[in-house]
């Protein structure tokens, strides 16, 4: 991945990107969602973090093998912050994988739903790219 990917609404990255985040994004670019695992105490983090919250040791990026989750909670955002106000309605969902790890992302195919989301409904992880390839993200599909 030659150039950095900028992430704004619905796209995970941050402006002050670190080598750790760059690594995360390069994996995401190849459709791999990475958690991090502490090299000392094996604690797991999703989204990943570079330092273990428990012992502050280094946590290494490790591929998530789970792709199916259940809806833990959600919000339908009708009135967005200014930066997203041109995006129309969007749904933010917290999905819970069977391992207990959670991930916050948008549900992007809600137009196919017959009603509002329901806590407990199944979610599937999906990777997405903008046409120019500069922006990548992960999403939930219902």
């Amino acid at each position, binding site marked *: 991945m030659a150039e950095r990917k900028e992430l704004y609404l619905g796209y995970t990255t941050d402006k002050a990107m670190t080598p750790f985040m760059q690594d995360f994004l390069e994996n995401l670019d190849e459709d791999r969602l990475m958690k991090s695992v502490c090299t000392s105490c094996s604690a797991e983090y999703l989204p990943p973090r570079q330092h273990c919250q428990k012992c502050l040791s280094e946590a290494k990026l490790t591929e998530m093998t789970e792709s199916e989750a259940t809806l833990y*909670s959600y919000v*339908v955002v009708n009135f967005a*912050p200014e930066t997203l106000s041109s995006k129309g309605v969007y749904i933010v969902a917290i999905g819970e994988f069977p391992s207990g790890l959670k991930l*916050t992302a948008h549900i992007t195919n809600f137009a196919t739903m017959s009603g509002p989301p329901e806590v407990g409904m199944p979610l599937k992880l999906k990777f997405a790219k903008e046409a120019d390839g500069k922006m990548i993200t992960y999403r939930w599909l219902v």
Partner: protein
Amino acid sequence: MARRVAVVAGGHSKFGKRYDATMRELTAEAYKPIYDEGITQDKIDATVLSYAASQFSGQGAGSALMADYIGLQGKPHLRVESACATGTASLRAAWGMVSAGLYDVMLVLGVEQMNRVSTATATEYMSRAGDMRWEYPYGISFPAFYALMASRYMSEYNMPHDILAKIAVKSHHYGAQNPKAHLPKEVSFEEANNAISICSPLNLYDCSLITDGAAGVVIAAEDRVKEFTDRPMWIKGIGAGASEMKIQDRPSLTTIPGAKYAAKAAYKMAGLEPKDMDMAQVHDCFTIAELIAYEDCGFAEPGKGPEMVENKENYHDGRIPVNCDGGLKSKGHPLGATGISMTYEVMKQMRGEAENASRQIDDVKHGLVHNVGQSGQFVNVFIYERGW
């Protein structure tokens, strides 16, 4: 040995869209009633003068501006920031200084000027109190954080939205009787239940207001209290707590873990229990936040908050009157002023000085303030005791 500390005076600006004032004039408006009671600048040893978000005004070193504007040149001041819990965080800091003997008399004043930017911009600023790497990019606004709690609560306890609408009806009922309130008007259940969606399941009437305003209190060490009042409100208990930064990392979304911890710590320090409280000012930035506060403060068991609402136990003549000044919902929520405004209201109720008898709570001996920052990352709970 820590010294006992009491709130001896308070002042409160009109809350609202204050296009006639900025943070300096609002500061003066909140301090003036205190000055008029005789607590002139020379009687104040030091101050904590705070606001939550400098983005709104663009002013740096704001506490210096505030101190200077109200004639406190040369008096030590500082600003404390804890998002929407800034007011009580300031009070907690000041209590520590007075209790320890560093100062005898302190002015603690919170202010926020929020309406010089658009609602979308204000929403944007507030959403930046979420994790800028993993939450903000997904557009989780301030109401969205609480909507995530509401969705989970409604699912776990099978609660209809009606309960939240009834909380909004109560808040506006009392706000309509408070001349300081931003939106002093009654709303019907139908209006509150069917309003336009902001962040579903939360609608317009589930959300607090974007408000300009200021509030201040003076605290004094026990051996100085009599110089200022014969009606001191003793700070009997203080508890502070914190919750995980990312909302997805919380062990539960039907409670605010930091609030539960803070309430327990405050009760323990005060040697009191929830049943001893005669009133509460809770942080109802959203109706779901008020409902969860009933449970976190021990006024209802988990999942039983809705019964308190249905039975109107939260009204001024109920078992535990909550937010009988209109709360953040109707009185308004100028972030940095809110915690001090809550404190001011407890003092007012204890003194029997509510503007309308129909919102005056009878015989308040103990009152609780529950002030939450952002979605629970900061929480302060104060318990007050009538000193006369």
